[in-house]
């Protein structure tokens, strides 16, 4: 029987209606000495208001440079069962779909070798297995990989790509997010498992501008589906929305950011040439409005959390790229983008930060993308302009300017 700790502070967080993480840890602690000690240590953190974990150390499995995050208690004498409490990241399937057979199988492995605690899922998308000993890592990896699972990314590497639910259960998916995510993950297996880059590189794939996977805020490379054709309007369904109480003028037409819609005599019209495809009207009138025509993806780069010099949203670099199997153009574009970054970045410099340092032109030229107004909010304001001699030989020639 695992040790029982007195946890008055954590017990408070078992009260109340929302599911409790404390209850989860206690469930695991009924059979796991590790989870029991973790509970004891977390209670101590609640009392002292500081964490009791050391910095991660280098641990892993043979042939891999990442996928396991070393974690050690700073109080190993008090909590000996969590002297090692490493995290194992397992690459999730696209769209976070599972069979119960698969879930039970991974639970069996984790009950045998780990704490019985997981995160479904980690912030990047992996299945997170919280807490195991260095001695168990090779066995864990053999058990997982022999059943078709592989480690996720960590460190200065390609991080496990993730995606929204896409065409599996969403009518707005302009691209096959699940397949793109899977194919890119396979394409970059070496880079994912063996950190060799200046810093982390995250990829997320969203099917439309609703961006349910937060690609635009949380991925160095944000792939977001879009389309070029008109919005198809089913006027009968428009009438049904009106009948159902929707104030179409106020909720749809006046909230359109481009003012491209009109609603007269029960008919909703879209001036498609003025539509910027923001998704508001489509999301609110799912039965009446649909995108149509050519589909593809925008590639945006650079988003990240605040460390080191402030948070960034991704910038549009490629406004439109075809994203159809076998995705050769997309893969080559991403490889070239990474190559440029890998060549120029300092250690721990994300691509967004490097673009600021080197300038967007350097990247665009390297990857062969023309400057386009879709890339910017507005052009340069100050007339501090770099020119190259080549610009005058090719662009600003006397016959053209």
């Amino acid at each position, binding site marked *: 029987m695992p040790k029982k700790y007195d946890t008055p502070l954590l017990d408070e967080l078992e009260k109340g209606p929302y599911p409790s993480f404390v209850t989860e840890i206690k*469930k695991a602690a009924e059979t796991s000495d590790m989870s029991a000690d973790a509970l004891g240590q977390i209670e101590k953190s609640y009392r002292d208001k500081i964490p009791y974990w050391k910095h991660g150390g280098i641990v892993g499995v043979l042939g891999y440079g990442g996928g396991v995050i070393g974690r050690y208690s700073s109080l190993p004498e008090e909590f000996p069962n969590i002297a090692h409490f490493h995290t194992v990241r397992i690459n999730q399937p696209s769209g*976070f*779909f599972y069979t119960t057979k698969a879930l039970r199988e991974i639970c069996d492995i984790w009950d045998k070798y780990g704490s019985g605690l997981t995160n479904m899922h980690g912030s990047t998308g992996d299945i997170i297995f919280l807490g195991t000993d260095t001695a168990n890592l*090779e066995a864990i990896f053999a058990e997982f990989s022999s059943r078709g699972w592989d480690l996720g990314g960590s460190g200065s590497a390609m991080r496990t790509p993730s995606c929204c639910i896409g065409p*599996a259960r969403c009518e707005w998916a302009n691209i096959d997010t699940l397949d793109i995510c899977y194919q890119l993950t396979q394409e970059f297996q070496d880079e994912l*498992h063996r950190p060799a880059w200046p810093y982390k590189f995250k990829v997320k794939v969203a099917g439309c501008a609703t961006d349910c996977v937060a690609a635009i805020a949380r991925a160095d490379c944000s792939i977001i589906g879009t389309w070029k054709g008109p919005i198809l309007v089913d006027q009968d369904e428009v009438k049904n929305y009106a009948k159902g109480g929707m104030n179409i003028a106020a909720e749809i037409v006046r909230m359109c950011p481009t003012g491209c819609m009109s609603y007269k005599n029960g008919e909703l019209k879209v001036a498609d040439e003025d539509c910027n495809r923001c998704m508001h009207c489509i999301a609110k009138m799912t039965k009446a409005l649909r995108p149509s025509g050519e589909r593809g993806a925008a590639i945006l780069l650079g988003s990240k959390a605040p460390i080191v010099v402030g948070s960034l949203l991704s910038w549009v670099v490629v406004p439109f790229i075809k994203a159809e199997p076998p995705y050769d153009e997309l893969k080559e574009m991403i490889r070239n983008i990474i190559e440029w970054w890998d060549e120029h970045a300092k250690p721990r410099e994300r691509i967004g930060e490097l673009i600021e340092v080197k300038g967007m032109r350097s990247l665009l030229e390297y990857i062969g993308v023309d400057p386009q107004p879709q890339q910017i909010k507005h052009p340069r304001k100050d007339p501090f302009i770099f020119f190259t001699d080549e610009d005058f030989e090719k662009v600003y020639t006397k016959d053209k300017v």
Partner: protein
Amino acid sequence: MSLPQRQTDIGPPHYEHFLPPVIKKNYGKWKYHEVLTPGTMVHVAESGDKIWTVRVASPRILSTVTIREISDIADNHCGGHIRFTTRNNIEFLVSDEEKLAPLIEELKEKGYVVGGIGPRISNVIHTQGWIHCHGAATDASGLVKAMMDEMFEYFTTKELPNKVRLAVACCVNMCGAVHCSDIALVALHTKVPVIDHEKLKNTCEIPTIIASCPTAAISPDPAKKSVKIKESKCMYCGNCFTVCPAINIHDAERDGIAIVVGGKIGSLRSDPKFSKLAYTFFYNDPPRWPKVIAAVKNILNTYAANARKHERVGEWIERIGWEKFFKMTNIPFTFQHIDDFTFMRETMRTAATFKW
């Protein structure tokens, strides 16, 4: 005991193995969807097939005991299929309307919380906190639990003007990337870190430490074979602690929590936005952080009472103006609200137009 043969670089299992039959059949051929209740929606395919989704709250940290239990439920009702959302909700899918009510009944019987769909609060994105991180300035799971107990009815029943995305990051490193959330809690360190010079010279690389500082506050201290920190330039981001354990950023009495508001991810109506500072600082007050939770409630309630239908928190604030936001919420405006790091230029007002 012999282990099975390991394989390397195989990548994740192909997602197709895990898709329910109705999804495989109608993949990419969905026509529309409707939110039926706060916790259920139906997607209708061009073929006429339908799939009903029941969404359930999760603390994200799940024991294998619970994963086995939700697997049993999915076996009973969903043909052995289950999924998770990008916000860590659990989703049960059925292709037969008859199966919906018994599924929901079993979920409720076993204490699962159904909700989170539509103009409501969904599961809260958060980080590891004291549960599993060395850098945490607070506990993320505890804040989420305390917050969601109080916001519970906005998950299960009540509507808001639009969805409200909550998030908690246990330090500014933001593994949970909370920086584009409607309302987010961000834990802060507020004191210059303390250097253990003896430990530093044996464990850390000095050039890496110096390069880690975004404000160039760190310089070499050759006499001690260590570094020194210029206090006036340090804004306690903890990046030096990340690269060097001998630089201690933790301070139990001065670590605390800020609240940022008005961010969004989607491009609907307006561009994606960063969240901006609302409340500057609360002391850590575990296990339930009552002042922090009351502050979140204040923002949420003011938004709920005043925003127009479909406006996100950030869109509402931008329409009414920040001065009105601070007035309506009674949040004290401090020096810390004015950006003095990188973005002062673009965040100061450049028009003599005000609301009073």
